[in-house]
């Protein structure tokens, strides 16, 4: 089984991955093979499984809602990672056209 070209293109678009035609073909085949292997899960009877079951104990960690001033070197390192900055802020392209 291989994912057809329309399917793999759709998945690549949802994944925000720019892929070449060769890559699309190869990943389509590989994902198909992996999914065929995973299909064996269908044979497991899960009708009695309570899917709301939690694995582990979860609890809320509460914290006071306050701004913590970041030390200068940490802030500096963070800003240096950005592609483009302006006035100590990270500049990104328009989101709304």
């Amino acid at each position, binding site marked *: 089984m291989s*994912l057809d070209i329309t399917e*793999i293109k759709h*998945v*690549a678009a*949802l*994944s*925000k*991955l*720019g*892929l070449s035609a060769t*890559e699309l073909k190869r*990943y389509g085949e*590989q*994902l198909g*093979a*992996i*999914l065929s*292997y*995973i299909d*064996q*899960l*269908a044979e*497991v009877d*899960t009708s009695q*499984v*309570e*899917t709301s*079951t939690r*694995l*582990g*104990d*979860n*609890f*809320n*960690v509460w*914290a006071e809602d306050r701004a913590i001033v*970041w030390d200068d*070197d*940490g*802030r500096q*390192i*963070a800003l*240096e*990672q*950005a*592609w483009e900055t302006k006035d100590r802020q*990270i500049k*990104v*392209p*328009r*989101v709304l*056209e």
Partner: protein
Amino acid sequence: MNLNQLTIKEARALLDKKEISAVELTRACLARIKATDKKIKALITLCEKSALDSAHEADARIAKGEKGTLLGIPYLVKDIILTKGIRTTAASKMLENYVAPYDATVIAKLNSAGAVLLGKTNLDEFAHGASTENSAFFTTKNPWDLKRVPGGSSGGSAAAVAADFCLFALGSDTGGSIRQPASFCSVVGFKPSYGRVSRHGLMSMTSSTDVIGPMTKTVADAAIVMEVIAGEDNYDSTVSRAKVADYGQNIAKSIKGLKIAIPKECLGEELSFEVKELMQNAILKFKELGAQVTEISLPHTKYGIPVYYIITPSEISSNLARLDGFRYGYHSKAKKGETLNEIYLNNRGEGFGPEVKRRIMLGTYALSAGYFDAYYKKAQSVRILISQELNSALQQFDVIITPTSPHVAFKIGEQNQDPLQMYLEDIFVSGPSLAGLPAVSIPVGFINNLPLGLQIIGAKFQEATVLQVANNFENATEWHKHKAKI
């Protein structure tokens, strides 16, 4: 013996008696790395200057009379754990020049304990793999045979400990990434229970199974590191608030009367005669030590891999969505003026390697409309069955044992063309990850001069029992004393 070959426990005694200094110990590790890492390629970044600074600081603290199990002890860290001011790459082109603005909680804890950070180790890109062949930079070699992989994804850390580059290393384990390389390199690899060690500052892969743990030369050393890195953390809501046990306290206590289970599914026909023989020898050894060994059945074990390879890619697809190349990370050279979407496509398409792309797409597919019930929901349901099966066995038995991996280290390039073949590496290690249980891999013997590990799995938060069983086995055998000739 060279100082870099010491265990933590041995070095501690010498440091406390002032027979050696932290600086001498650190220099010995640095010298070993410089002389040997050309062959092994375990390190991505070496921090010589800052390591010596930390060692001097540790010596000053020792001189003032300060006591601490890891004070002045040199270690290495898998390059997916954030270290402030030091590059953290995840072995990805995407983060090749990324420098973290803060330390992971485990690093902060080790810093305050006075441990000496030597550098960062290689891994499969974003920890996706079982051989380090998925590193965007280079493949680490197995110290036991340079033509073979060290396992993965914490392969750099495992190889570094096996080659005595450090006294201990940190790895991360999502579905076997500490235990399998420990098996391939003949070191101790300890995966704590999910939630026992803070994940803050560990780049997220599968948030529901990721955990940081120690890779050491002995079981006692793993207990020492665990006592420092485990425990509550306000930066990670999934960390347990339960008190951290004194893991060293009962480690030497006899295992007479302890109940050990071995799943018959782990001794099946597909396993080689040699692996079965090592397992039979281990069973005999446990019986000699007074434990009761019983064969059990865990029929859902075989579904661990298909479940893991739905859950994991699903969580990866969402965790790696943050990498867009704007705030940090790889930015495509493609010209400006494109749409935002095109920039995302270029940054991510060029920045990620093949296995990362496969997993992002597999996860996106499994979570997409029309497939969610058939894949993700089904996998979560089977995960619950696997978890219940393991938990119920661990109500009757103290620990479960299996081989860590179905075979010894494979050759570089032997199975990296077939992603599915590589996934099958996780057969014995994925179950405890899916169920969040503590498990260790310790040396159990050799097949044609290549090491194999024994996995010991315990009930949730029963790390002390796992370490006790492992320590008893280690003391009764000589396997951990064998060193790779490199």
